């Protein structure tokens, strides 16, 4: 029995696990303060992505469209971007940065958005908005390349590349979180605070867990500033938690500004959080404080209540963004569970060379399949037609009907999780995330035992 890595054996997609690049760039863009992206393409590329993110966060936020219509598709649509940027700037006086996010249509017609940036910098911005400091950048995210994961990766890099500027050393670290939730950012900042480390967080999206205020004035938006981005060049180190979501930005900073850099591991579970703290300590020289020893102990105490009694040998399928899936699989293994199927979104050929995947291949002692460029049919077909038996599914809401139709308990994790309340508020990273995840999994299994009357009496005494 071994761990096999395979590419999906069909050309098409039946129920996609991931969406396309512009969605990733849009998610990155809302993490930046005073930033409204303009997506250069058809209106659906924005309208539905806003809806998707809004379903997940239960919040609204601004992203604009260049609204390419038929004439633009035929004759070129750069003029639409120019007009769109002018309209945005005229109506939103606080905007400081506008990323132009391309899509499949505008990449196919070959609109020169880099040229638009230059043109506007020399024209419109000087003529009409000379009193404002407006920054434009082009982010190329054709939908037919990569996925939302690479779109996010590219966008973070492009933002960093645009703004990072050598100055005085700032004694901070750069923490590039990858595609996470407000709850994750909160947990990560908590760990940094305990370590007494000052960090620039890309991106400060904790603010998306936002209030309703008596005067009705609250808004939801990310809080990473241009100054934060500029200062990334002056950090004493960079940690990118996710290899595939933010890794490119970390590499850019390392290469350009010679900043010591560690990419990964995704701090999901005890072991990976230990590694994260170890890396923080190595990069900053700051000790791991007793408070975190205790916090880790609280998590281990919670895990111990559940692992060998309830979780051992439970077969799990996990799908979603690659770093998340790998991190969850590693955690499950520590919990004595058996991840039997990992579905990694998109056609990235380098997943197979990921050291974490290699470690799985070298050490897993039961049958595990890892599918790349996977879709939901890779999961459902195995259950429906090939006899795959699962105890649990870990993944985002788009897979909900597999859980429902085949009566397999599921813990929602990743993006998007619109069919469960408030998940964006909770972390999956850090010791806090470990507790949250293990208890979610256990409670899902408990509910399932009761729902199926499968040894439900077991829980009478526990």
């Amino acid at each position, binding site marked *: 029995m071994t761990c096999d890595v395979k590419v999906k054996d069909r*050309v*098409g*997609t*039946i*129920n*996609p696990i991931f*969406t*396309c*690049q512009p*969605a990733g760039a849009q998610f990155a863009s809302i993490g930046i303060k005073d930033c409204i992206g*303009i997506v250069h*393409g*058809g*209106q*659906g*590329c924005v*309208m*539905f992505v*806003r*809806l*998707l993110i*809004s*379903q997940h966060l*239960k919040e*609204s936020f601004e992203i*604009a*469209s*260049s*609204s390419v*219509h038929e004439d633009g*598709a035929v004759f070129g649509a750069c003029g639409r971007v120019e*007009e*769109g*940027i*002018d*309209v*945005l700037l*005229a*109506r*939103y006086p606080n905007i400081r940065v506008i990323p132009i996010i391309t*899509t*499949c*249509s505008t990449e*196919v*017609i070959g609109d020169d958005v880099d040229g638009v940036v230059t043109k506007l910098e020399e024209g419109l911005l000087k003529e009409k908005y000379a009193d404002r400091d407006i920054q434009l950048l082009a982010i190329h995210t054709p*939908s*037919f390349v990569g996925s939302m994961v690479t779109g996010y990766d590219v966008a973070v890099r492009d933002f960093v590349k645009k703004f990072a500027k050598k100055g005085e050393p700032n004694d901070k670290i750069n923490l590039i979180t990858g595609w996470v939730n407000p709850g994750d950012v909160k947990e990560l900042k908590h760990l940094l605070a305990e370590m007494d480390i000052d960090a620039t967080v890309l991106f400060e999206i904790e603010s998306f867990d936002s209030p*309703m*205020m*008596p*005067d*009705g*004035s*609250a*808004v939801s938006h990310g809080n990473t500033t241009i100054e934060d981005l500029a200062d990334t060049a002056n950090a004493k180190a960079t940690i990118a938690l996710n290899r595939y979501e933010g890794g490119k930005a970390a590499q850019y900073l390392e290469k350009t500004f010679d900043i010591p850099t560690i990419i990964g591991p995704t701090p999901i579970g005890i072991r990976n959080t230990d590694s994260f703290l170890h890396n923080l300590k190595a990069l900053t020289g700051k000790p791991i404080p007793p408070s975190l020893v205790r916090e880790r102990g609280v998590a281990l105490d919670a895990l111990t209540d559940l692992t060998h009694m309830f979780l051992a040998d439970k077969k799990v399928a996990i799908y979603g963004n690659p770093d998340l899936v790998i991190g969850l699989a590693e955690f499950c293994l520590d919990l004595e569970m058996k991840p039997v199927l990992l579905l990694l979104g998109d056609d990235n050929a380098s997943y197979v060379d990921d050291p974490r995947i290699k470690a799985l291949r070298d050490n897993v002692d039961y049958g595990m399949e890892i599918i790349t460029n996977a879709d939901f*049919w890779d999961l459902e*077909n195995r259950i429906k037609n090939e006899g795959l038996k699962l105890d649990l599914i870990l993944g985002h809401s*788009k897979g*909900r*009907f597999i859980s429902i139709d085949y009566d397999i308990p599921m813990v929602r994790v990743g993006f998007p999780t619109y069919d469960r309340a408030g998940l964006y508020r909770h972390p999956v990273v850090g010791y806090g995330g470990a507790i949250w995840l293990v208890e979610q999994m256990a409670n899902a299994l408990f509910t399932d035992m009761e729902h199926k009357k499968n040894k439900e009496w077991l829980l009478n005494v526990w």
Partner: protein
Amino acid sequence: MPYHEFECSKVIPERKQHAVIKGAGEDLTSCLPKGYLNTIPGTISERGCAYCGAKHVIGTPMKDVIHISHGPVGCTYDTWQTKRYISDNNNFQLKYTFATDVKEKHIVFGAEKVLKQNIIEAFKAFPEIKRMTIYQTCATALIGDDIEAVAQEVMDEMPEVDIFVCNSPGFAGPSQSGGHHKINIAWLNQKVGTLEPKITSDYVINYVGEYNIQGDQEVMLDYFHRMGIQVLSTFTGNSSYDDLRGMHRAHLNVLECARSAEYICDELRARYGIPRLDIDGFGFEALGNSLKKVGLFFGIEDRAQAIIDEETAKWKPQLDWYKERLRDKKVCLWPGGSKLWHWAHAIQAEMGVKVVSVYTKFGHQGDMEKGISRCGEGALAIDDPNELENQEAMRMLKPDVIFTGKRPGEVAKKMRVPYLNAHAYHNGPYKGFEGWVRFARDIYNAIYSPIYQLSGLDISKDEIAADKGFVTRRMLSDAGLSDEIKSSPILTEYTGKYDSVTDLRAKTYPEFERKTAASAAE
């Protein structure tokens, strides 16, 4: 012209022609905004694209079909699981979506081969499904793939399957409405008349422009079946692909959402002489009139009247319970298209609320004509609204509730205005007599939520009523009501079930005798 200029839009003067306030003495010749024009880029409009109008609004509610989008994966993913068009076959069309997953190499070398492989793979994965719709997207339109040729090739090789092709890329028009148009005409040209339906009644209709949101179609079908009417097809909610190929044999097209589906009705009228009857499935009076009209057309108005009498007797006292409590509440009716006119008058007349604003994201001037006609003086009508204008309008109008989409609903939430989902509904269906009460119930629950009262309290400044452990909706809604109404033995709150639709699927209907032996033998 009583144009309304938003402060926030003064810098884009052309927006001025897209909003009007209906003043005293204004009529349609003096008060109508522009509509269905190209969107001004950068306004943060709420419009979608022509692909979603075709695929997501009209195509995918068809229930027994593999719906495949030819393009990169995003169009498919992003439109998947964002609507509530259910069906009575275990929601196949909600659960499964297909993308050809076009990549860079296909953009360079063409994607027809990968399309064909996709089609075959999809039929193989679902051997019980023999029907398919293929939707072009921006990318495959621009590279010029001949989707029809590939579909024909497959149909030649697999005679048991039938494939419909819709060429409606995202950029084809100012909004999703461009896609509604394209798929209407494409379906008519490609598929109508290619299958002869079995006629089982003297009274045969198509129910057009109805997408079975939360079961709306099934509610209406129940009425039609109680009248002994054969509904040949529904365009397209909960409908079978093959049923829609037989649309040409109906005696009457009953049209609900004229915005998205009038084109096919107009063409069926022109080509086959089938009359178009516009109806409203919302509101007791409008719905009653609609059923009566369909009945009159076939000379069976007594059957319609029986339904109206029975349903009205059952549900009217419940509707009125809410009406007493919703009087003069200010509503922003901010849907996508047709609901602005389906609801504008009916909610005022039958629920007592006041519509202070209507808008349409993707409607045409024709929709605004209907909407403006149906709302009262002082209403602000906005075409192709945008984020800042909506916020300005809410600050100006101070509505008690808004009916709009999910994401704009989040904007309203922050401004402490409760919202109901106008597209997908909160706890629908909203069509039918019972549905209309459900709608009133949802409005009541939104407006009188004790949480909205709490959210207005600034505990740092305001007096806190520390003696209260709770407040109920009734404590809020009944405070100003007369004792007579409060303790009315007739008026009651909604009594229906959480799921008012599933039971309909098991219902049986009386056999009505057919007029002649010849027609019975058809």
